């Protein structure tokens, strides 16, 4: 057997183990939406912690992060530490606990449902779902790209990019279609623990080969003295703060993370998870990202479009170990992607499809003397109602739609991954920025009863339009006032619009601010 075969065998073997776990979970799954999407809100501390953690542990952190510390210095640890260990943890409470309480009281499964119900607006619900699916796309693509690169790097190009990217696509489709949240959560736990163990083993192995951390850092001080000084180069104050804030706020609105806010089995689980969060972040990010920085000092060369982690492993450890780490990383990407696809599917069916089919129940007839505006409104409704009647749903059709949605979405992002330019960090950063535009309007809505439907439309719509323009239109700049990113500027704009327009408008009929006034739940 050649080394390549052994390596591929290790990666394949891991995938099979994950699949078996998915099948076991499948056998324990009721066929209800609550169980499929939320494991019936029963996730305990360890599983919730690791499932959220593993979801964050994507190609972005595992390959992109070390690549960045390799080229720009280890300060990325601080960016990710503040964002993930501190700001996200605080949002876990402020946004997550609030959403959990509201979700427990009203039975919400998606963010769109929660907002749509409060503001009496199907359009808002659909808008939030559509925006989320839009920004989910590049992030799923990022995982496929990461997997493709990983396989190329592992086999020295013997296996082409599309095989790795396509393989993981196929795997995640099958996996999501079969197992639902319970299976996803279980494999996430396995993967989270595995990743932590592997990364420490990798650091121990490499450091013992080069003479310990002091020797490794001394080499770095010779080749890249600038890396050891805090800040400088890429890392300006504005960059560090913008990136940490934008990613932390963005993460909370990722469908797969946001849906986690609904799934804890009890308050106790949320509390424990909060306290463990910063420690877990330190345990993972410090060794993973220092590996990238040390690799620069050790003169490890990274092939074009390759990643530094497999490169340094190949140089200092055994081939089989590199394969195990790559398997772990691919598993992490898979668990990110399958959670994303699962949550994406629930957004698609519950927030986009179901509201349209529900319209079938409505009566689009007009009173005798209606204004022109009302006539236009009613005609639009009539068209929507006939569409709803046409699609008239039954559960089978909805389930089929969810599965078909996953297949189409994953296939399209796979095709895009073959052509998309940009590094893993750039792609990820753009997606995080897009989601971050949703966070402040949602927070305002949760805590400020005076928020109106029009305030939400303006805040969400305005911030998205601005951010989209900064990403896609060359004449709209991507940074402002000496380095603040468009994402942070857009967040401020969204906040100002939400509050300003809410103050200028009155609550429409159908809005119910009391929906979010919830007290603690007894019997923990």
């Amino acid at each position, binding site marked *: 057997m050649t080394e390549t075969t052994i390596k591929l065998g290790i990666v394949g073997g891991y995938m099979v183990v994950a699949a078996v776990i998915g099948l076991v979970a499948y056998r324990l799954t009721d066929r209800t939406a609550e169980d499929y999407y939320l494991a019936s809100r029963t996730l305990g501390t360890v599983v919730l912690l690791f499932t959220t953690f593993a979801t964050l542990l994507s190609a972005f952190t595992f390959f992109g992060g070390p690549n960045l510390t390799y080229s720009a210095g280890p300060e990325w640890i*601080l960016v990710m530490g503040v964002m993930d260990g501190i700001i996200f943890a605080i949002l876990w409470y402020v946004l997550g606990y609030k959403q959990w309480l509201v979700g427990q009281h009203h039975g919400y499964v998606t963010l769109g449902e929660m907002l749509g119900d409060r503001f*009496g607006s199907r359009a808002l619900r659909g808008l939030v779902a559509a925006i989320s699916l839009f920004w989910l796309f590049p992030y799923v693509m990022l995982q496929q790209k990461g997997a493709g690169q990983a396989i190329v790097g592992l086999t020295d190009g013997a296996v082409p990019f599309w095989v790795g990217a396509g393989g993981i696509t196929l795997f995640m489709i099958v996996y999501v279609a079969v197992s639902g949240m319970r299976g996803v959560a279980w494999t996430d736990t396995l993967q989270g623990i595995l990743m932590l163990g592997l990364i420490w083993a990798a650091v121990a192995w490499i450091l013992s080969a080069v003479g310990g951390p002091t020797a490794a850092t001394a080499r770095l*001080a010779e080749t890249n003295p600038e890396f050891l000084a*805090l800040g400088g180069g890429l890392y300006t104050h504005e960059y560090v703060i913008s990136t940490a804030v934008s990613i932390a706020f963005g993460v909370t609105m990722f469908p797969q993370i946001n849906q986690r806010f609904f799934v804890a089995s009890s308050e106790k689980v949320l509390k424990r998870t909060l306290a463990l969060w*910063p420690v877990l972040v*330190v345990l993972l990010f410090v060794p993973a990202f220092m590996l990238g920085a040390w690799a620069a000092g050790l003169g490890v060369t990274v092939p074009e479009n390759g990643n530094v982690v497999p490169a340094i492993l190949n140089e200092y450890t055994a081939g089989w170990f590199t394969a195990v780490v790559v398997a772990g990383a691919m598993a992490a990407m898979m668990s990110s992607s399958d959670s994303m696809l699962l949550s994406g599917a629930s957004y698609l069916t519950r927030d986009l499809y179901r509201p349209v089919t529900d319209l079938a129940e409505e009566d689009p007839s007009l009173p005798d003397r209606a204004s022109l505006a009302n006539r236009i409104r009613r005609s639009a409704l009539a068209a929507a109602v006939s569409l709803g009647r046409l699609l008239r749903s039954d559960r089978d059709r909805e389930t089929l739609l969810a599965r078909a949605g996953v297949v189409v979405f994953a296939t399209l992002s796979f095709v895009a991954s073959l052509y998309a330019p940009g590094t893993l960090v750039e792609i990820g950063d753009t997606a995080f920025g897009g989601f971050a535009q949703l966070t402040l309007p949602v927070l305002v809505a949760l805590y*400020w009863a*005076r928020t109106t439907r029009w305030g939400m439309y303006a805040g969400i719509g305005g911030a998205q339009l601005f951010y989209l323009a900064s990403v896609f239109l060359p004449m709209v700049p991507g940074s402002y006032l000496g380095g603040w990113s468009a994402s942070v500027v857009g967040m401020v704009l969204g906040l100002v619009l939400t509050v300003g327009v809410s103050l200028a408008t009155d609550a429409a009929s159908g*809005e119910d601010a009391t929906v979010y006034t919830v*007290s603690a739940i007894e019997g923990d």
Partner: protein
Amino acid sequence: MTTRSEGTRQHLERAGWAIGAVVVVAASIPWFLWRDSTVVAGLPLWLWWHVGWLCLASLGFLAFTRYGWGIGVESGATIGSPTTEDGPEVRTDD
């Protein structure tokens, strides 16, 4: 009177935790070590600060879950007046 001092206490508590949260975020990057490149035991000093701070933050979060949990989130926290006094008529805008 009792209710009033109770209210004040709650306000102070909430403000205290909020200030604590801001401090935890702000000091997790050692801004005072900017451009410093001292290495201690194989890692930059600024990284040790960050690691230590995150561990302290963990303890801080643990203390919060014990003594402050629920502040600002559970009901009573929603500021402003509910806007649906004229009846929660169920309607949508489309």
